[in-house]
């Protein structure tokens, strides 16, 4: 991480702008995420975090700016090329977003369906993903039978089943009790260590940021307001920065 200026970032967002009418949500936002890094992005509600990740995974088109994932500018890729690139990105949604009409097994098999793999391999991948989140027994349950914490774990298993190089976490601990939130943070750390993934974590949870971040960016008014390690930012005297760390 020390020599990161000499290595290429795995994810690079440059001067991203997005407006909805007169509402300028992103005003030239830029980040670089390096291999094996856990980058935490913090911002107030409405600061443009969700818009940024939607642009990042192609759910929304930015007005201007570039997004490079593993050296490829996603705005120039065909839909097919972008869909192939998407298999390198895992996404944990805030509300877990498990498919209601499918069992846990089918939820985990879903990202694998486009890849021509043998049934045994799929079984093994599903089993391993469930072991990694400690929920092997839940394989045949429906999402409605799971608690909030279990849903988040299954969603995490689904996000990592393709062994992606980048994982995006959208407020991974929101809506969970403190104990379950700690378990999810621990799982995130385990996954990062096991799969050597790079993580972009969007969170309001200071504890989560403290435990997991290698580096943090504070997003205010659609631009990067401050960047540094947790200790650097939390000890800042800037009132706007301090507001993030007051509980």
């Amino acid at each position: 991480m020390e020599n990161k200026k000499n290595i290429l970032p795995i994810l690079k967002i440059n001067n991203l702008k997005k407006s909805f009418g007169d509402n300028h949500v992103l005003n030239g936002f830029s980040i670089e995420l390096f291999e094996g890094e856990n980058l935490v992005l913090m911002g107030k509600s409405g600061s443009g975090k969700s818009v940024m990740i939607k642009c990042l995974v192609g759910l929304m088109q930015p007005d201007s700016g570039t997004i490079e994932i593993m050296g490829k500018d996603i705005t120039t890729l065909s839909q097919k090329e972008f869909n192939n690139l998407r298999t390198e990105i895992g996404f944990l949604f805030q509300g877990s977003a498990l498919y209601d009409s499918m069992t846990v097994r089918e939820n985990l098999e879903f990202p694998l369906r486009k890849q021509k793999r043998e049934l045994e391999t799929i079984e093994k991948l599903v089993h391993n993903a469930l072991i990694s989140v400690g929920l092997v027994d839940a394989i045949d349950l429906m999402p409605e039978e799971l608690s909030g914490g279990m849903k988040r774990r299954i969603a995490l298993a689904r996000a990592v089943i393709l062994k992606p190089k980048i994982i995006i976490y959208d407020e991974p601990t929101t809506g969970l009790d403190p104990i379950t939130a700690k378990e999810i943070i621990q799982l995130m750390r385990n996954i990062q260590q096991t799969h050597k993934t790079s993580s972009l974590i969007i969170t309001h949870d200071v504890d989560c940021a403290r435990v997991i971040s290698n580096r943090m960016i504070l997003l205010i008014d659609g631009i990067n307001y401050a960047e540094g390690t947790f200790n650097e930012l939390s000890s800042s005297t800037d009132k706007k920065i301090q507001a993030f760390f007051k509980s």
Partner: protein
Amino acid sequence: MITHWNDMTTSLQIFNTIKKFFIEIGELSYFAGRFFKEVFTKPFEFKELLRQCYNMGNRSLLLVSITGFILGLVFTLQSRPTLMEFGAESWMPSMVSISIIREIGPVIIALICAGKISSGIGAELGSMRVTEQIDAMEVSGTNPFKFLVVTRIMAATLMIPLLIIYGDAIALFGSSLIENLKGDVSFQLYFNKVFDAIKFSDIIPATIKSIFFGFAIGLVGSFKGYNCTNGTVGVGEASNSAVVYTSLLLFVIDFIAVFISDIFFEI
């Protein structure tokens, strides 16, 4: 002056409603265009299509059975006194069968299916939209339009005609039961008269019409659900407006179908 201002406000509201209606028609047409583009391109989601066919067909079977049976029963009971008045009760099987097969069966069963299937699709896709399940599908590299929308529209287009044919048969059975109980007409005689009366020119336009009914049911339900906004309130609105728009569209299709049938089949 106040009256004048109120008139202007009302006119503006009417204008906005009409504008919104035409925008929605435009968006629905674009949605239908996207369906036709996606339905012929790979990959084909056969497994999901079969699942949807099973869900729509199997889960609507009881409702269609009860509706069809009561339809035939009531129609025959209501028509008997009038036909008896003219000494024409022997025309009952032909009159009932032609009415049910040509018009009443397809329209009533399609309306019932609009209430069940179209609202179901609207609510299901709407709920998937607001809980980010559709986004999750897209992020995983799957085309959610193909997986969710194309399969549902195709399933409705395939299953509604089958449900209508089945419902027509049940309605005729209900009618024959009344004729058997009240008019001492045997089932064999009743159905002989039915098959003597109905022609291909009755069955073909009705079947073609029911394919369009199925398409409309799948299309509007999917359109409303897929484009759902405003969270859980939006899901209710999507489900509700799916039924309203589909019902309206069914009558428009019915009118056009009858008009065209009149030209080609000389009803």
